[in-house]
């Protein structure tokens, strides 16, 4: 009888440990599972090609995209971004002075977890902080100037692999988990999560749009979208996704958005920056 009780207790302990393991925060394990999922779903796509979003999963769109790249619609934004980076503020400093290596070739390091502040800092947030710290008016997070500056920074970082770090800090791990949770939680009257489209249905059509895989989805940001008739930042992408499922968007750069960017960028570690991009 005593032996039976011991076996029962041991079994209960094993199940409890499994449950705890399933709930524990393990970015490396998530990373492996995420990559495995997309590579199994799309075995013909080369890993680096996932950064090309819908073009990686649709041959016809891919051909159109190659033609579009001969005269890329985001070129104007790159030029404007270069000007804005070098344009002196009223105090004589420039945007470039705010960033390592004058902002050239650093896109792949954003977002990062700032241990002093205990929060995720995205590139868009860093751009506006630079402006404010120098007495300048911040850009709209969804506007053209923000898209231009980040387009230039992405352009100078093309080919560099995402290198997002999650330090062994409970706050960083919590931010990562918070972003992951936001990505998978359904919201809006249409009851969609980010994952509903970009994990469960990549490659499928939603109305006339080919859905991009979540793997590498931020590598091409910011993007020129034909649907928008202009450039769009990551903030614009996230807020418009919320609206599309009939959810009221949060404020750009609220913690949820910064954290989901942190999560998705970490999932794309090792994949090359391809921004700015052009999308239908």
């Amino acid at each position, binding site marked *: 009888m005593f032996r039976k009780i011991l076996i029962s207790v041991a079994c209960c302990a094993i199940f409890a440990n499994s449950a705890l393991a399933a709930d524990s925060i393990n970015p490396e394990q998530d990373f492996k*599972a995420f990559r495995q999922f997309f590579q199994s779903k799309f075995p013909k796509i080369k890993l680096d090609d996932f950064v090309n979003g819908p073009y990686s999963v649709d041959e016809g769109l891919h051909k159109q995209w190659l033609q579009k790249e001969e005269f890329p619609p985001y070129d104007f934004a790159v030029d404007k971004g270069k000007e804005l980076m070098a344009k002196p503020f009223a105090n004589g400093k420039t945007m470039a002075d705010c960033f390592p290596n004058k902002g050239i070739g650093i896109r792949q390091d954003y977002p990062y977890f700032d241990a002093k502040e205990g929060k995720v800092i995205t590139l868009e947030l860093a751009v506006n902080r630079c402006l404010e710290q120098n007495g300048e008016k911040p850009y709209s997070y969804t506007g053209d100037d923000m898209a231009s500056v980040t387009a230039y920074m992405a352009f100078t970082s093309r080919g560099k692999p995402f290198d997002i770090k999650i330090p062994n800090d409970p706050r960083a791990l919590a931010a990562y988990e918070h972003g992951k949770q936001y990505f998978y939680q359904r*919201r809006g*009257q249409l009851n969609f999560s980010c994952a509903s489209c970009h994990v469960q249905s990549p490659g499928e059509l939603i109305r006339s749009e080919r859905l991009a895989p979540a793997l590498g989805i931020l590598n091409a940001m910011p993007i020129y979208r034909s649907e928008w008739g202009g450039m769009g930042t990551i903030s614009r992408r996230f807020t418009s996704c919320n609206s599309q499922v009939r959810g009221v968007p949060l404020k750009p750069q609220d913690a949820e958005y910064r954290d989901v960017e942190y999560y998705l960028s970490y999932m794309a570690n090792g994949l090359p920056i391809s921004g700015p991009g052009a999308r239908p």
Partner: protein
Amino acid sequence: MRNKIIAALLLAALPVGVALAQSPQDQFKAAYEKAEATNKKAGELRNQWTVTANALKGAKAAADAGDFDKALKLANQAEALAQASIAQTEREKTLWKDAVVR
């Protein structure tokens, strides 16, 4: 005993009487305030729906135009939508984990 039964029936009928006595304007006002409060709670949970805001806006516009039947209907609709958004948030507190790629 009979008096007690009559008193109980009168008390039970009181809220119905009060509701009947309310003007359409008052009924709308009560329904609108309730829907607004529920939608505010959805906002605190970081999950408001655009359709709730639209219904509230429509209710207000109908009331301003003096169409209190329509205003009340839209306010009640807004309340139902706000309740649904809160229920979704509550469900997704745990349900999201089932969708995670493992």
